[in-house]
């Protein structure tokens, strides 16, 4: 439902009545085929929201070229006709499909749902009102989103980086961080927006790729690159791309001269006032909750935090204050893409938990008529040539293509359609297949990437096997790219149709492969992440085996006292353990490990062995790896030699027990990044800055006369944690920055411990005499992670953490289907992120477990027993590990076997095989060679 907003939420969890207001689109979605004729004729231009006002759009427009749904809309605030009845109306005349409807009206919908998920996102901070950045007055000061659009090939300059003021190429580019973040004075947003450091680095690197010789500088306070692989990217940006990083806070941007040069003034780390000039300045603007979302929060009656984000608990990060209403994404705090995607799945898990009794109640499976057997019929090909409005017909002589198609072998029926994809044409094609007794279809239209699934459904509706269709792409590959050359475009369209007809002639009916699913899950690891996953799946109604290698549930959380938001960890963990122990769907295996694995998605067989030497095989359809991480034991800073040098976990215990040394100590020094962000461990452990700041606050609150120092490299109290950093400074905690090349030195002389660190402001080493040194030590992966990974064929990264399938879009999936990851096993993270990931992994596993079988595409590799001689060349090239070498029956050599559940039909095996011993269904040698011969035979 597009152009729609929620205006009322009545009812309770499980049974809400939501009122949705749908604004008029003024374009009939069923008729619009997005040909673009309307927009060409529309005389009204306004700033494009999609291009962040760097470019223009018309009053009738699509948001962007790949928009879903790809349907035009009229902006009532810009349209001449809608403002003045009787005027303009050019789009209506231009629209062949008759889709324009100026009389469209607002509609109200009452919808009954069991749960609501709020995912309305964020808005970028608008720096206009702040004044000091020159935004709005100097055209060469832009926001980061505007730079994204300038760098994009689909943007207003097609990826060329030029100055908006005079079109001159940009040679010097500056990024200013924390605009609209960490700044209570100018914008009122005290929190850190979490994502700006990383996007600025990415944009700087890409800008340098676009413009050879470009000088890019990033002016920042703390470099907050705390996510997975972010620090490695930072190092590459510094050392390989040559991006310059300047630690300071810029006072403001002034315009210098008529060309719009930007003058920056700032105080550097040595305390000197400096001035620099740039062609363009990019403001790394923060994320904030838009006004309409504040209203939505009011409508939904949910509580917000002081920073105006949805209030959630660290142990239920997608649950709002109102039962049955959940959140995901930036509404509950600024976050990046992977975390937003994780929360999307997590919210799905939370909803599934609530609504599990009603699963499958409202969903239906489509039904189709019985399939006709065509194996003994001669090919009877039907060719449908699409005009696509004027998209194809405006360039290609479609009538000539139609006539040509009639001359092709086996073609018995040809027809032209204005829009082959429209519903009425679909019905017509179905009718023609039956009337003309067609058994092979060629659609000469657009790309199979977007439209093949649609035409497959059409064939199914006509009782024909869905694989008997071939698409000839005479639009994207032809009329669009040869718009200047209609004659040759027409000739090429004929070639493409001839090739498609030749290929489909040898097409076979194929049956999608069905793989049964064992509706049971295996969760490895009994920490917070593992328990959360197990519990959610059990609440959803699935049987779960939970494997824990120690004799205690709780994992690393047993070492923790409070979350960053102040929730009491032991209480929450105890509750979680209780729920797990009492849930009859969860079978707990303590002091057990996975020692062998067989099978694949839907059908895993994992052997678990217990300490007493017993082992058993568990059948499961999906698996979640939540094996956690471990605390790094340091050697530096004299940790081994000085008793009063302790790790943060040790300090927490001593502090809680009111141990004498801590009680009487007056001076405390925290050293950050111990074992993180250096050498082979170039990653941030993410939780240590916040942990030390929290400890420092506790020390100061207990006795304000204590001196507490935190020696840090970049203070990474990201997101709403920034409030803790502010509080610590207010309480008088002293923060001293050090660089990797000037690490602190810790020595002991009698009762006195001395920490020596370089003081940037005073330009001399600073010696701090103290009573206790606390090392903020890293989180390390489990040493046996790679071994477990090998069993399930899932990889670990260079640091030893498990590697997800895709950093952004599949953050809890493994590349091995049916396996998922959560918690510290994936990367260091705080509890609420572990819980979100654990819920997400459960949701992803549930998408499999909710079905009794999965249907897989029939495009799979198949062995030809007559030709395969077991040379095994294909075994090595298969990227999915789907091919194995087995003995033939009766000891007659070897042959390959393809696991169809693992095969993705990529065809590498077929390309590699020297003997034609393996082929991919739908792309047989016969089909491809017929297609090639048709291409060459003119």
């Amino acid at each position, binding site marked *: 439902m597009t152009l729609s907003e*929620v205006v009322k939420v009545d009812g309770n969890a499980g049974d809400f009545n939501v009122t949705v207001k749908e604004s008029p689109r003024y374009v009939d979605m069923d008729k619009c085929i997005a040909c673009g004729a309307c927009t060409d004729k529309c005389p009204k231009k306004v700033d494009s929201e999609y291009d962040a006002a760097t470019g223009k759009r018309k009053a009738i427009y699509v948001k962007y070229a790949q928009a879903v749904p790809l349907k035009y809309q009229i902006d009532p605030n810009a349209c001449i006709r809608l403002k003045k009845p009787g005027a303009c109306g050019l789009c209506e005349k231009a629209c062949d499909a008759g889709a324009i409807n100026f009389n469209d009206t607002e509609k109200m919908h009452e*919808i009954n749902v069991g749960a609501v998920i709020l*995912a309305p996102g964020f808005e970028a901070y608008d720096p206009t009102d702040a004044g000091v950045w020159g935004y709005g007055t100097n055209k060469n000061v832009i926001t980061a989103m505007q730079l994204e659009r300038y760098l994009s090939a689909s943007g207003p300059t097609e990826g060329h980086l030029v100055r908006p003021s005079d079109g001159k190429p940009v040679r010097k580019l500056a990024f200013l961080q924390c605009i609209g973040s960490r700044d209570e004075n100018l914008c009122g947003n005290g929190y850190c927006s979490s994502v700006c450091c990383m996007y600025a680095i990415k944009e700087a690197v890409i800008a340098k790729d676009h413009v050879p010789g470009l000088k890019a500088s990033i002016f920042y306070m703390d470099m907050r690159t705390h996510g997975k*692989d972010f620090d490695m990217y930072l190092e590459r940006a510094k050392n390989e791309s040559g991006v310059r990083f300047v630690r300071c806070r810029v006072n403001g941007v002034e315009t210098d001269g008529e060309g719009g040069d930007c003058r920056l003034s700032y105080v550097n780390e040595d305390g000197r006032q400096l001035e620099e000039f740039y062609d363009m300045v990019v403001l790394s603007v923060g994320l904030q909750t838009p006004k309409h979302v504040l209203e939505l929060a009011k409508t939904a009656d949910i509580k917000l935090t002081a920073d105006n984000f949805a209030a959630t608990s660290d142990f239920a990060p997608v649950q709002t204050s109102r039962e049955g209403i959940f959140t995901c994404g930036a509404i509950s705090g600024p976050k990046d893409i992977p975390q937003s995607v994780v929360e999307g799945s997590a919210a*799905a898990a939370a909803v599934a938990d609530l609504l599990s009794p009603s699963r499958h109640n409202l969903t239906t499976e489509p039904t189709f008529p019985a399939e006709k057997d065509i194996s003994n019929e001669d090919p009877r090909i039907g060719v449908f040539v699409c005009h696509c409005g004027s998209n194809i017909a405006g360039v290609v002589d479609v009538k000539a293509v139609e006539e040509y198609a009639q001359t092709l072998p086996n073609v018995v029926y040809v027809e032209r359609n204005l829009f082959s994809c429209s519903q009425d044409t679909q019905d017509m094609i179905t009718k023609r297949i039956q009337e003309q007794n067609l058994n092979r279809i060629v659609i000469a239209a657009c790309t199979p990437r977007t439209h093949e699934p649609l035409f497959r459904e059409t064939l199914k509706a006509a009782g024909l096997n869905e694989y008997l269709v071939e698409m000839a792409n005479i639009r994207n590959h032809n009329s669009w790219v040869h718009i200047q050359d209609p004659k040759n475009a027409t000739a090429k369209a004929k070639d493409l149709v001839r090739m498609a007809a030749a290929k489909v002639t040898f097409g076979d009916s194929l049956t999608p492969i069905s793989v049964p699913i064992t509706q049971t899950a295996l969760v490895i690891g009994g920490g917070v992440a593992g328990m959360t996953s197990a519990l959610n799946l059990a609440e959803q109604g699935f049987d779960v085996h939970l494997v824990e290698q120690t004799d205690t549930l709780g994992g690393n959380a047993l070492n923790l006292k409070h979350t960053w938001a102040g929730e009491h960890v032991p209480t929450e963990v105890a509750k979680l353990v209780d729920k797990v122990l009492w849930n009859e769907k969860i079978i707990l295996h303590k002091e057990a490990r996975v020692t062998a694995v067989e099978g694949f998605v839907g059908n895993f067989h994992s052997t678990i062995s217990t300490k007493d030497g017993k082992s058993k095989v568990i059948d499961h359809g999906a698996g979640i790896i939540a094996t956690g991480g471990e605390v790094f034991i340091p050697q530096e800073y004299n940790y081994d030699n000085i008793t009063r040098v302790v790790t943060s976990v040790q300090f927490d215990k001593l502090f809680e027990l009111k141990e004498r040394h801590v009680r009487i100590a007056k001076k405390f020094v925290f050293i950050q990044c111990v074992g993180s962000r250096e050498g082979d461990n170039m990653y941030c452990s993410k939780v240590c800055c916040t942990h030390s700041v929290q400890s420092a606050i506790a020390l100061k609150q207990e006795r304000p006369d204590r001196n507490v120092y935190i020696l840090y490299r970049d203070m990474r109290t990201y997101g709403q944690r920034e409030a803790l950093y502010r509080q610590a400074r207010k309480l008088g905690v002293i923060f001293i920055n050090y660089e990797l090349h000037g690490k602190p030195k810790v020595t002991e002389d009698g009762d006195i411990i001395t920490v020596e660190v370089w003081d940037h402001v005073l330009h001399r080493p600073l010696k701090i005499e103290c009573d206790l040194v606390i090392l903020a030590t890293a989180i390390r992966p489990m040493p046996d992670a790679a071994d477990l990974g090998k069993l399930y064929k899932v990889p670990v990264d260079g640091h030893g953490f498990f590697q997800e399938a895709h950093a952004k879009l599949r953050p809890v999936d493994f590349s091995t289907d049916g396996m998922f990851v959560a918690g510290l096993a994936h990367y260091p993270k705080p509890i609420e992120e572990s819980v979100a990931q654990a819920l997400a992994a459960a949701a992803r596993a549930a998408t499999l477990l909710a079905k009794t079988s999965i249907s897989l595409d029939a495009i799979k590799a198949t062995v030809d027993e007559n030709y395969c001689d077991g040379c095994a060349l294909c075994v090595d090239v298969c990227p999915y590990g789907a091919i194995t070498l087995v003995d033939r029956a009766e000891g007659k050599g070897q042959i390959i076997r393809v696991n169809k559940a693992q095969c993705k039909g990529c065809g590498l095996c077929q390309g590699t095989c020297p003997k034609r011993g393996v082929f991919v269904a739908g792309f047989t040698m016969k089909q491809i060679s017929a297609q090639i011969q048709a291409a060459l035979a003119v």
Partner: protein
Amino acid sequence: MLDTKKVGSVMIVGGGVTGMQAALDLADSGYYVYLVEKSGAIGGAMAQLDKTFPTNDCSM
């Protein structure tokens, strides 16, 4: 809670990456989903990005 009504459908407000992920996971696990989007098309902020870390993949 057994006697309370549980409707097997969900409304998701917002069609960005996070809303779409929630919608897909719920639809794939047997729930009817209403995806409500304020603008004319789904995709959200990510669709505006040129390339994304770490692979510099096009965001589209």
